C-alpha cells in the first residue's frame, strides 16, 4: 500500500476529524493541531500518546492501523536489513523515508537517523495519510509483533 496516491482533497477531508482526535488525545485545543505540526516537537506527544492516537483514530475512522505501519509502508520493498543497520537508517532507507514522508520539511531529516527517532518526523499529515491508506486498504487485520508506530513506552 506504500504507493497509494493520496490527493490534497482527501487529506483535507479527513483532517478535521484527525485534528479533533489528536486534540482529545493530547488534551490540547484543536486550533493548535495544524496539518504540518510535528507530533513530538510541536504538540508534545510522548510514547503513550502515540498509542492513544492510533487507537482513537481506529475507532474514529473504523479502520485498523497495524502497529509499525508507517515504517513498514515507508520501507516498501526494501528488506529490513537494507533499511536499517544496528538501529540506524541506511542511506537507501533514508532516501526512501524522505520520499515517503514527503509532507515533512526536508530540513527535519538529519543523517544519521536512528530508527527510534523516526517518529520525531511524524506530522499530523502523516497520520492523515495513514488513515486514508487504511481506508483504501479496507480495514486489514492487525498482525502481531510488528515494530511500534511510536517510541517504546517509558
Amino acid at each position, binding site marked *: 500500500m506504500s504507493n497509494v496516491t493520496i490527493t490534497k482533497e482527501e487529506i483535507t477531508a479527513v483532517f478535521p476529524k484527525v485534528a479533533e482526535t489528536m486534540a*482529545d488525545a493530547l*488534551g490540547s485545543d484543536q486550533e493548535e493541531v495544524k496539518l504540518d505540526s510535528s507530533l513530538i516537537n510541536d504538540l508534545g506527544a*510522548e*510514547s*503513550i*500518546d502515540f*498509542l*492513544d492516537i492510533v*487507537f482513537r483514530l481506529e*475507532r474514529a475512522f473504523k479502520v485498523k492501523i497495524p*502497529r*509499525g505501519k508507517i515504517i513498514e509502508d515507508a520501507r516498501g520493498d526494501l528488506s529490513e536489513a537494507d533499511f536499517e543497520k544496528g538501529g540506524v537508517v541506511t542511506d537507501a532507507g533514508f532516501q526512501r523515508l524522505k520520499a515517503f514522508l514527503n509532507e515533512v520539511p526536508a530540513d527535519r531529516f538529519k543523517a544519521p537517523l536512528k530508527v527510534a527517532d523516526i517518529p520525531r518526523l511524524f506530522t499530523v499529515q502523516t497520520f492523515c495519510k495513514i488513515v486514508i491508506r487504511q481506508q483504501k486498504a479496507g480495514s486489514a487485520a*492487525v*498482525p*502481531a*509483533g*510488528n515494530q*511500534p*508506530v511510536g517510541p517504546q*513506552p*517509558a
Partner: protein
Amino acid sequence: MDEHFRAFSFVNRITSVSIGQQVRGKYQIPPDLIDFPLSLVGEAVGQLAAWSAIAAVNFERRPVAGIAAKIELLNSICPGDELELAADLESVDAEAVSYGGVATVRGAPVLRLEHCVGPMVPLEEFDDPHALRSRFAFLRDSGTNENAFKGVPSVLPQRIAGETGKWIRATIQVPECAPFFADHFPRRPVFPGTLLMHVNLHLAAALAAELAGNTPPVPVVRSVKDVKLRTFIPPGELLESEARLIESDSESPVISLETRKGKRLIGTARVCLAPQKKS
C-alpha cells in the same frame, strides 16, 4: 512472607479463556477487610485482561497501566462479595493490548472499563516468566480460595493550595516500602496506576464536597474518562495532584485531574460527577 501473587493480585480463578480474545474469572474480596475501593475492582478486571494478553505473547511481554477511555463506577461493593470478572480483548500484540471489561456482583455490574490500552513491556524486566506461567496454569486449574490481600497502606492527598469549589492542589507521598511493591512488580516495584487513581478520586471527592457547600447531597463520582498514565512511578516519589472544576453548568460537573512529578506530567483524567442515587 513472599508477597508475590498475594499483596496486589485480584484474580482467584480463571474460569474460561480464549487466549488473546476473552477471559472470565472470579475474585473473592476478603471478608475481613474494612473496605475495598472500586479502583481495585478496576485493577482486578485489568489483571484478568493482562493474563490473557501475557499468554497471547507467550509470556515474553506484559501490559502495564496506560490508558482508559472510560471507567464507569456503577454500584458499591462490600468485603466478602465475589466479583465476577470479564474482559474482552480488542487487539493484542507485542506493543499494546486494548480491551474492555466489566465486574459484576450477584449479576449486577459494579464497574465497567471501556477502550483501555496497556503498553506491553518486556516481562522478564518486571517479573519471573516461569512463575507467571505456573500461576496462569494454577488459576486456570484449581485457583485459590486464600484471602491473601490484606489491604494497602493509606495514601491520602495532603492539600497545599486551592480555591474553594474551584480547584485543589495536594501532595501525594508514595510509600517507600509497602507489601504491594513485592507483587507489583517483583523485579521492578512500581506504584500501581489504580492506586494513583484511588488517591486522586479522594481529591475529586473533596472538591465535590466543596461544590455542594451547604446544600447536600454531595455529588458522587460516576465515571472517570480519558485516564492516561505517562510513566512509571517508583517507590518513595513525592507527587503533586491538582483537581480543577472544568464544567459546572449541568447537574453533572466535571473535574480534571493532573498529577505531576516536578514539572513532568505523569497522569491525567477527567472525573464526571452525578447526583447521588435515591435509595
